[in-house]
């Protein structure tokens, strides 16, 4: 795990073959881990580049570990057309919203900078996304879809839910992860079961790291 976590050394996947994971959970997570090999099916071509650039802004990932394939996770969901069970009436259906949104991000970028979104530097991308978030953009490419709503109802929930459904993200934030059938025993403050991660308190990073390597 990388330096920006308090749980260095903890890898929730080390618990895969312990009583904290049951067979169905193993199958589900194994399948999720294959996303790295996913070839884009919905966000293809230019949209794929925009999506990847967008992902690095919404969830910047540390360079010292393999990245969670966030764009692939989203594209898989779009390919399966997995909706939420509701849709703000001002937004088109899932895939269409993403198609329009990615296209509009690129159009906004070309309009403002003469380059596609993926070719902007970080600062310019973030700047543009702030404008989208606050609805301060009006390229015809949005085709009537309110940009701020696309950002708050599609970009953030869809990308954040995909990222934090990945075991690597669980390790990063010190989540115990799957817990069936073993569950948990120690419920009160500052207590942990031996199969939960150790948080590194200042000055105790090395010890925490060693213990986290043993968490099973």
């Amino acid at each position: 795990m990388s330096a920006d976590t308090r749980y260095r050394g903890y890898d929730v996947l080390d618990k895969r073959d312990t009583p904290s994971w049951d067979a169905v959970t193993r199958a589900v997570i194994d399948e999720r881990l294959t996303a790295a090999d996913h070839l884009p099916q919905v966000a293809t071509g230019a949209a794929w580049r925009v999506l990847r650039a967008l992902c690095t802004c919404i969830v910047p990932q540390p360079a010292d570990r393999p990245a969670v394939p966030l764009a692939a996770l989203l594209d898989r969901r779009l390919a399966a057309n997995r909706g939420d069970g509701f849709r703000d009436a001002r937004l088109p259906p899932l895939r269409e919203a993403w198609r329009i949104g990615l296209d509009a991000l690129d159009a906004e970028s070309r309009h403002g900078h003469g380059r596609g979104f993926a070719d902007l530097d970080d600062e310019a991308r973030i700047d543009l996304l702030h404008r989208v978030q606050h609805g301060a953009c009006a390229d015809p490419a949005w085709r009537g879809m309110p940009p701020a709503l696309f950002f708050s109802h599609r970009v953030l929930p869809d990308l954040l839910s995909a990222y934090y459904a990945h075991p690597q993200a669980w390790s990063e934030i010190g989540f115990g992860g799957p817990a069936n059938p073993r569950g948990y025993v120690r419920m009160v403050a500052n207590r942990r079961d031996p199969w939960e991660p150790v948080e590194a308190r200042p000055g105790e990073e090395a010890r925490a790291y060693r213990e986290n390597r043993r968490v099973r």
Partner: protein
Amino acid sequence: MCADARERPRGAHGRAPDVFRRGGWVPMREYDDRDAVDFAIVGTGAGGATLACRLAELGFRVVAFDAGAWWRPLEEFASDEEHQAKLYWTDDRLCDGADPVRLGSNNSGKAVGGSTVHFAMVSLRFRPEWFKARSQLGYGADWPLDWREMWRYYARVERALRIAGPVRYPWGPHRGRYPYRAHELNEAALVLARGAEALGIRWTPTPLATLSAPRGPAHPCVYRGFCVSGCATNAKQSALVTWIPRALAAGAEIRDLAMVGRVAVDGADRATGVEYLREGRWRFQRARNVVVAGYAVETPRLLLLSATGRHPQGLANSSGLLGRYFTVHANQAVWGTMDDEIRSYKGPPSLAITEHWNYADEGKDFFGGYCYMSQGPLPVVWAVTQGGRGLWGKPLRAEMQKYNHQAGLKIVGETLPQADNRVTLADTKDAYGLPVARVTHAYCDNDRRLIAHSMDFMSRALAAAGARDLWRETDDTCHMAGTARMGDDPHCSVVDADCRSWDIRNLWICDGSVFPTVGGVNPSLTIQALALRTADRIAALAGRGEL
């Protein structure tokens, strides 16, 4: 893993899944489509399953339908938020109005067992006065029911589900102790307790529908914390593992993956059965009585879809109120960071509660009440909550690092029934080819005052418990009700006190949609109590030849 429960029906060929044994089956009685059964019930959630069970036990011939799948929790419920979305009603619905609701995961299920399969198990009674909110408290509408009778039914549901709760409940009239002992508290619950004590109000371990001691083949809750993703141990007393097995044993038939698209009525305004889609084919089940129990969006939708020449506005809608008074609970929260490690992912999410502001009337500038509970969001829900604050990029990552230190208090807050909050049909069609529901919602000023009051109070409580960097989650809602309200006047209600439609006397509605008001507590216990009462009333009416 066995074949996907969503591919082929499992309740067929004289057997149904035994949810208590891996790969096991139990016998199931089956009825022919042409055989006019006593009751065809649409939906097998808190209302439908309870009613199906009791009617079968009372000797009626019952077939219940659910659009969702018949899951085997022990084998098929992963400890995973994303995968378990398979339990939610994810077919499209359109949301509009000044404050559009977010349905989906936090609002409704599609499975045998309904929303109780992934609900949070909080099992509360209404405050007695709420049944007469209009005449005793000055807002909303009266229920055509007496609270004493409802309290007897509450006690029956609590026994049937082995509710785990305190010996003495701090609010309201005496209710006796809960069948099973209260659960151990996690630190998130103790934060609520400290805040309440600092502010001088009472709190209690939450009465929960999950086992604190063994029950038959089910063992107690293991505190794994994935409750709203479905319980893989069967500790959770969902309809799937309680009323449904009982219903089967009593001779009811349950048809999974069976979407009802229309309730049929004849020229004499009698329901004759239901049209349903199963295994790619539309069929018709004849029935002497039809019960709709699809929850507060699907129930009005189905009755609107069933419009005929004689009932152009939909069935049971001569009052024009079907679909109106769609009422949610406000579900706002205050969150903060603690110095301690809280790790609120351990245990059921809401182990402690205060109903202080449900029972206190002094010091309020609004009608209605709210309770608030401790929280235990898992990472996906937590990240999306951060997104709801507008966080992304580096600030989001920094906030997510505090996951194990966060604690929060969240209300279930009463909103007022408003006629213009409603369910109608949209132009868009779903995968079955049926128009989807459009759900229009706005808060009123009273709702906003209640929310503001709760957030100020919870902020003080959380700060008193030692939380720093408080922030407010302002736009969540949960639970739905009201779209087929009960009453004692056919002009002002859709069903009578027995959940029987005024217009079509052999059509019944048995789910959250009959609530005239929602109170400040989660609805499932009240829905189940109503279903028990409805079953008894049906038996009594049948005995008198009045069905």
